[in-house]
C-alpha cells in the first residue's frame, strides 16, 4: 500500500498547492485543509505502516512484541489533527467576517495595505 499512499500524498499536496494559489479565499481555506490531510498522511506513512496491530498492551502484559504500530507518529498526528481543526475553524470564521466587511472574497482586492508605491 506504500506505493498507493505515496501517490495519494502527492495528489493531496498537489491539490492543496493548487487550491492555496487561487484568488478565492474559500478555495485557499480548502487548500489549507488538503495540505493538513497531506501532512498527516505523510507523517503516518514515513513512520512505517503496520496492519492490524495497534499499540495496545494487553491486560497482564508489561510490553508488546513486534510487529505492532509505532505509537509516536500517531500521537504527533493526533495533535496535528486537533490543531489543524483550530486553524480551519478560525480561518472559516475569519473568512466570513472578511467577506462581510470587505464585500469580496477575491484576495487580489485585499492587497492594498501592502502595496509598494
Amino acid at each position, binding site marked *: *500500500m*506504500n*506505493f*498507493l499512499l*505515496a*501517490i495519494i*500524498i*502527492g*495528489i493531496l499536496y498537489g*491539490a492543496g*498547492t*493548487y487550491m*492555496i*494559489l*487561487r484568488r478565492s479565499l*474559500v*478555495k485557499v481555506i*480548502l487548500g489549507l485543509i*488538503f495540505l493538513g*490531510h497531506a501532512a498527516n498522511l505523510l507523517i*503516518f*506513512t*514515513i513512520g*512505517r*505502516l503496520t496492519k*492490524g496491530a*495497534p*499499540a495496545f*498492551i*494487553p491486560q497482564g502484559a*508489561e*510490553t508488546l512484541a513486534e510487529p505492532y*504500530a*509505532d*505509537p*509516536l507518529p*500517531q*500521537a504527533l*498526528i*493526533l*495533535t496535528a*489533527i*486537533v*490543531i*489543524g*481543526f*483550530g486553524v480551519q*475553524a*478560525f480561518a*472559516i*470564521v*475569519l473568512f466570513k*467576517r472578511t467577506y*462581510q*466587511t470587505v464585500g469580496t*472574497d477575491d*484576495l487580489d482586492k485585499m*492587497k492594498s495595505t501592502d*502595496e*509598494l508605491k
Partner: protein
Amino acid sequence: MLTLILIGFAASAIAPLIYKPLKNYFGWIAASFPLYIFLSFLSKYNQIASGNIIKETIEWIPSLGINFTFLLDGLSLTFVLIITLIGVVVFLYAGAYMRGYEHADRFFVYVGIFMTSMVGMVISDNMMTLFVFWELTSISSYLLIGFNHHNEKSRKYALQALLVTGGGGLALMAGFILLSQISGSFEISALYNLNENIRNASTYSAIVILVLIGAFTKSAQFPFHFWLPNAMEAPTPVSAYLHSATMVKAGIYIIARMNHSLGGTALWQDTILIIGAITMLFAAILSYNQMDLKKLLAYSTLSVLGTLTMLLGIGSKLAIKAFFIYIIAHSLYKGTLFLVAGILDHETGTRDVSKLSGLRKYMPITMVTAAFASFSMMGIIPLVGFIGKETVYSAILEVDYWGLFLLAVAVIGNALIVMITILVGFKPFWGKLISTPKEPHEAPIKMWLGPLALAVLGLLMGIFPNVFIGRLLDQSAISIISEKLELTIKLWHGFNFVLLMSFVTLLLGIGIYFFRLKILDITHNFKLKKIFKPSEWYEFLLNGMMSFAKFQTKVLQNGYLRNYIIFILVTAVTLASFALFRIENALKITPDFSITFYEGAIALIIIISTFFVITSDSRLKSIVGIGVVGFVMGIIFIIHSAPDLALTTFAIETLTVILFVLVLYKLPRYLKFSKPLSKLRDIIIASGVGLFMTLMVLYITSIDLTSELKRFYTDTSVPGGKGRNVVNVILVDFRAIDTLGEITVLAIAALGVYALLKLKLDDRGE
C-alpha cells in the same frame, strides 16, 4: 592595558554628566584624560626602547580564539603616544571651540570613544579585537563627521565615510580570517615567523588584496581617497584629530604591522608602492583649485598618506626610517595647522583663503604657531619636517630603475604641498588686511596653547632628533621589517643632491603659489569627466544598490499572497529535489506494487473527490468533497492500526463540514477569478510539488527504519505511565506539556472565533 581602555570608555560615558556644571573648565578636565593615558604609556617608554615587548592577555571568547591580547612594542607605542598627545591638545582646544555648538557634551563622548578605540586598535595583537576597535573608530568617525546633523551634507558625507571605511573593514576581516586559517590563531604575533608559509599559501593573493582594501579605504588611498576631503564637514577639532593625525593612519598602521608576515612579494610591495605614489601625486594636484582652508589641508594630508604608503612599499631600511620620521612630523605639523585653520574660522568667521589676509596684528600667537608648523610642513631646516623630507628623498633615490622618476613625482607633490602651506600658514597673516565676517581677535588660551606646544615640539624634535625619535626607531623597525636599522638620525647631512632637491621643491612650490591665479584662470573651464572620478563610482554603486533594493522589494513583496507562496514553494522544492537527486540510487527503488481491492477503492475515492473539490463551481459541493476526503483518511488510519486517529478524524471532519456549511451557506456562488494562463502555471507548480512529495515518500519508505523511541514508549508505557493504550499515554503523560500547549492553541482559536462572530464594527455600518 585593558584597564586603561576600560577607563577610556568609562570616562567617555561620564563626559555628558559633568559637562554642563563644569562647562568653563571642561577643556582642561577633558584634556587630563588623554594626558593620563599618555603618561601611563610614556612610563613604559624606557622598557620598550630597550627592546622589551609588553604582552597582556585577557580571555574574551577563548573557544573561538578571540581574546583581548594587547601587545606593546616600538610601533604600537609610537602610535599610542601620537594619538594621546594630540588627543590632549585636541580635547583642550575643543573645550573652547565647541562651546557654541549644541550638544557639545556628545562631541566629547564620541571623541573619547574614538581615542580609546584607536589606542585599543594599535595595541591589539588579536586580529578580531583589532577589527572590533577598527570598526569602532569608523563608527565614531561617522558620528563626528555627521555632528552637525541638521546639515544634509554632513549626514551624506558621514555616511559616505562610514560606507567606504566600513566596507573596507569587512574586507580586512575576511583577510584576517584567511590569515588565521594558515596560522591557526588570531594572534598577529603568531604570524611572525610564518612569512614563508603565508607567501606560499594558495590564499595569499586573496589575503593581500583583502587586507590592502581595508588599509587603503581607511587611509584614503586612491581610488578610495574621495571620502577624506568630504569628511571636512566635521567640526575642525575632528578634522585635526581623526582625519589628519590619527585615524587615517590606521590603514598605514595595518600595512606596517602586516609587513613582516605578508611582505616581501612583488604583489605586496609593488601594489603599495604604486598606489602610494599615485595618491601622493594626484591628491596634491587635486588641491590646486581649492579655496577652503580645511579642504586644502585635507588634500595635503592625502598626499602625505600616499607618501607614507609608498615608503612602506619601498620597504628598505632607509624607507622605514623615513616612514617613521615622516609620520611623527606630519602628525605634529598637520594637527597644528588644522587647529590654526579652526582658530581662523572661529575668530574671523570664514575659511575661504581668498578672504583672509593681514591678520598678523590681531593674532600674533596664532601667526607664530602657524609659521612653525608651516616651516616644518615645507621641510625647512631645522624643523622635524626637514629631516622627514630629506629622508624620504634619500629613500626614494635608492629605488632601482624608477628612483629618479619617483623622485620627480615626489618633488612635484611636495612642491604643491609647499603651495598649500603658503596658502594656509602664511597668506592669512601677511599682506593687506581684508575685513572678515567677524571682528578678528586672538584665540583664547585653550585654543592656542596646544597648537603652539605641538609646533614647538616639532622644532625640538628637529634639533634633537635622537632624543625624541631615535630610541623608538629601532624597535619600530623590528616590528615592521624584523631587523634593526642601525642608522642614526641627523639634522644636517651636508650639501648633497637630496638637499638640492629640497631646495628645488621649495622654489617650485613658491613659484606655483605666485602663478596660482593664472593657472586657475587657464584651467577654469576644465572639468574632469564623471567616469574618471571615483566619487562618481561610489554614487553609482550606492544608487544602484538602492534601486536594486526597490526593484527586488517590488518583485518579492508585491502584496499578492500567491506570489509569496510560489516563491517559497518553488525554492523549497527545487533545493530539496536537488538534494534528493544527488543521493545515489534515490530513484532506483522498487516499491511494492501489490494492492488489495479495498485499497484500490480507497485510493480511487480520494482521487475522485479531490478532483471534484478542485473543479466544482459550487461551495457546498466542494465542502461535501472535502468531507469525503477526510472520512477516507479515517478509514486509512483504521486499516493501519491507528484507531485513535480514526476516531478523532471522524469527529473533526464532521465538525468541519458542519461549520463550513453553517458559515458559508448563505454566500453567493463561486466567481471565476483566475485567467487560464495563471491556472496553467499553478497546475505546473502544484504537479511539481505533488510529484516531489510522492518521490520523497517512496525514497524514505525504502530505507529500513529502526526506532528506539518506539521501543522506549511501549516498554515504559505500563510501568511508567500506568496505561495500556500507548498513543494515549504518550499524549497525556510523556508529552503532556505538548498537549497542554495544543489545548491552549485551541482555546485561543476558540476565543478568536467567538470574538470574530460577536464583534460589532459600529463605524463600518455593521
